């Protein structure tokens, strides 16, 4: 059994969270509230030491980038959210963030999510160097078309659209099943990790 007080704290908190499997109880609620508090405290610390100190405080203090004071003023406008009379000022930093990232996103999305995906979907003769790869490429291309057809709501799904969208839903369900399977696997592996911690690091029953 571990003699480290932090291992005991971690084990008790782990058990407190697992106690939710029985029903919601004060131990779980305590762990949940503690998590929210510590996570936010850590976020404040992280942003201070890893972002604000190296990117704002140090360059301004050294007189290297004094113009960053203006950026800090814009950032500080987030505080006005909690002052009702001037809360509209919070729109300025939000506008800066939203504006830049909306604009920056458009060409990147066209490139990564449209053109690159199209390029990867197009079936070329070279893919049939290995007949299997060629066949899989054809299936992928048909699957993509069928999936897009399923989400095509501009026209009533009848005639040729109906069977194609039916094939689309088959591909979608297989895809969702695959994602679901992998998500469950990931959660189970986390569960196994917690059991290993409790039985190994804490109780010393397994090595």
């Amino acid at each position, binding site marked *: 059994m571990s003699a480290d007080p932090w*291992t005991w704290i971690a084990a008790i908190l782990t058990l407190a969270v697992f106690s939710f499997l029985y029903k919601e109880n004060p131990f779980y609620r305590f762990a949940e509230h503690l998590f929210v508090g510590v996570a936010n405290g850590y976020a404040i610390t992280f942003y201070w030491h890893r972002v604000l100190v190296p990117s704002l405080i140090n360059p301004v203090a050294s007189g290297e980038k004094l113009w960053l004071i203006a950026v800090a003023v814009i950032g500080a406008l*987030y505080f006005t*959210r909690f002052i009702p009379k001037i809360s509209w000022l919070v729109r300025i930093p939000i506008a800066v*963030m939203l504006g*830049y990232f909306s*604009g920056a996103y458009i060409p990147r999305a066209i490139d990564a*999510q449209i053109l690159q995906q199209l390029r990867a979907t197009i079936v070329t003769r070279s893919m049939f160097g290995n007949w299997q790869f060629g066949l899989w490429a054809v299936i992928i291309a048909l699957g*993509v078309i069928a999936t897009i057809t399923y989400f095509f709501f501009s026209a009533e799904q009848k005639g040729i659209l109906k069977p194609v969208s039916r094939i689309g839903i088959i591909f979608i369900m297989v895809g969702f099943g*695959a994602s679901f399977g992998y998500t469950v696997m990931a959660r189970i592996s986390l569960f196994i990790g917690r059991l290993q911690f409790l039985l190994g690091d804490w109780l010393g029953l397994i090595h």
Partner: protein
Amino acid sequence: MIVLVLGIFGAAAFIIPHPIVKGIDGTMRNDVLRIITAFSLVLGVGSIIQHHLIKVRRKAEHWPFSYVTLIALVASAIIGLFGGIDPASPGILPTHIGGFSFHMQTLYENVMVPLAATMFALLAFFMASAAYRAFRARNLEATLLLIAAFILMLGAVPLGRMLIRPLPDFAEWILTVPNTAAKRGIMFGIGLGSIATSLKIILGIERGWLGGGGK
């Protein structure tokens, strides 16, 4: 106006390879937006503090637990801000009492990591119960979802190979062929939808982010 100008600049910076434009874009990303993003934490942390203070003041249901959040937040922030985030470069606040450390890194490893991992591990049980409901093969779609998930899970563990030798390869095929086709089709939709939304924001057609008219 800010959204329009910065939106056009953000899009143009990707297309124009001129060093001046690239330089301004780099400054925007590495300095301006980084700093403003850090300040945006104020919204989240401020809202949480406000929410819990209101709960305490009104003595709402389970209000004593709000003290846990508030005390944990303030204590960990003080430890982190004044004790440092890197054990190799300690701050002005001592973070050891004898052999007992309460440094931010220790809190992270022994409070945050176990709590986060256990919270997500807990989801395994709820997903299992959700899966039971979703996987009762009532129609072709549910059956396909069930089969794909089952093959994927079984194919990823040694038992799968022991039972049916080609199962891991088949699981891999599901991931790389039908799964890719479905995800790619969905990604087209997401991409086009996101581009349309971004354009609406830049052009001022979508103004939901402005909130409730300054109230």
